[in-house]
């Protein structure tokens, strides 16, 4: 099933165990990114990832704001606050998805809407010039658009930003999972995507 707006492939389970089967939970059910995170770590591929997502101190301070802490509470957590730091005016839990993290978790998805997050990647492949193309594993019923579909780096250390627009006509019955992968033939950079209709913490 191909989408003519961007590169998409039917959602495929890519997380396998050493028996080439799906990673499962202790009950035998198929594992999800809530169980496995981004997957099982690789001792070799992680040495040369190609691109990295750098999460800044401001990202982490904003996380505390989005989580609901005010500036007084944040000052007790992080004594070294940049001067004049204030929480974004519209801080709320669902904005946690906007932090520059290697995975993408979208919460509070009500259906019949679209949500956009930005991500910034740094070229660490060491080859200077590098062209990455995105491919998306899209959950059924969803449309995931990535702009641009090509990232063209000209030097090491360069940062480029892309947008992910997630939309669906229907509302969610349960959390769904996908992924986007940037490849340049030499490196693959995979980010799991989770979309949930929940938007407050549950314990």
């Amino acid at each position: 099933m191909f989408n003519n707006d961007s590169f998409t492939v039917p959602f495929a389970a890519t997380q396998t165990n050493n028996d080439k089967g799906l990673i499962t939970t202790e009950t035998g059910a198929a594992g999800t990114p809530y169980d496995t995170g981004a997957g099982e770590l690789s001792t070799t591929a992680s040495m040369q990832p190609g691109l990295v997502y750098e999460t800044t101190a401001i990202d982490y301070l904003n996380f505390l704001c989005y989580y609901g802490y005010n500036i007084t509470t944040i000052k007790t957590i992080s004594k070294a606050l940049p001067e004049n730091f204030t929480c974004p005016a519209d801080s709320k839990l669902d904005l946690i998805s906007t932090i520059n993290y290697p995975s993408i978790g979208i919460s509070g998805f009500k259906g019949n809407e679209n949500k956009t997050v930005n991500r910034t990647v740094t070229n660490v492949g060491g080859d200077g010039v590098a062209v990455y193309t995105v491919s998306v594993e899209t959950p059924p019923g969803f449309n995931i658009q990535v702009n641009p579909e090509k990232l063209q780096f000209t030097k090491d250390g360069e940062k480029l930003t892309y947008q992910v627009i997630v939309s669906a006509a229907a509302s969610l019955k349960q959390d769904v999972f996908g992924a986007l992968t940037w490849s340049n033939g030499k490196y693959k950079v995979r980010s799991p995507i989770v979309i949930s209709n929940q938007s407050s913490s549950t314990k």
Partner: protein
Amino acid sequence: MERERCEKLGLIRASTYLYLQPDITAPGVAILAAWTGNDSRISLEGKPVSQFNVISGTSMAAPHVTAVASLIKSQHPTWGPSAIRSAIMTTG
């Protein structure tokens, strides 16, 4: 062959807390690890007490990730923690 099973690193998914979930998975079941040399429960009769044991848990998974993080840092000394974490996650 015993199916490999992994322990989740980081937060145990005992709660259904939406905003903090595991980032990565590492081997954590039936891991050969160093042990106190004093545990007579695992010694064989007539043999010295073993200094190793086969143990499971996130305490077994975590050192795998720590080791990979240290290797990445040794190859890329200028990288900060978020770049190292990203390298581990995007290649998982």
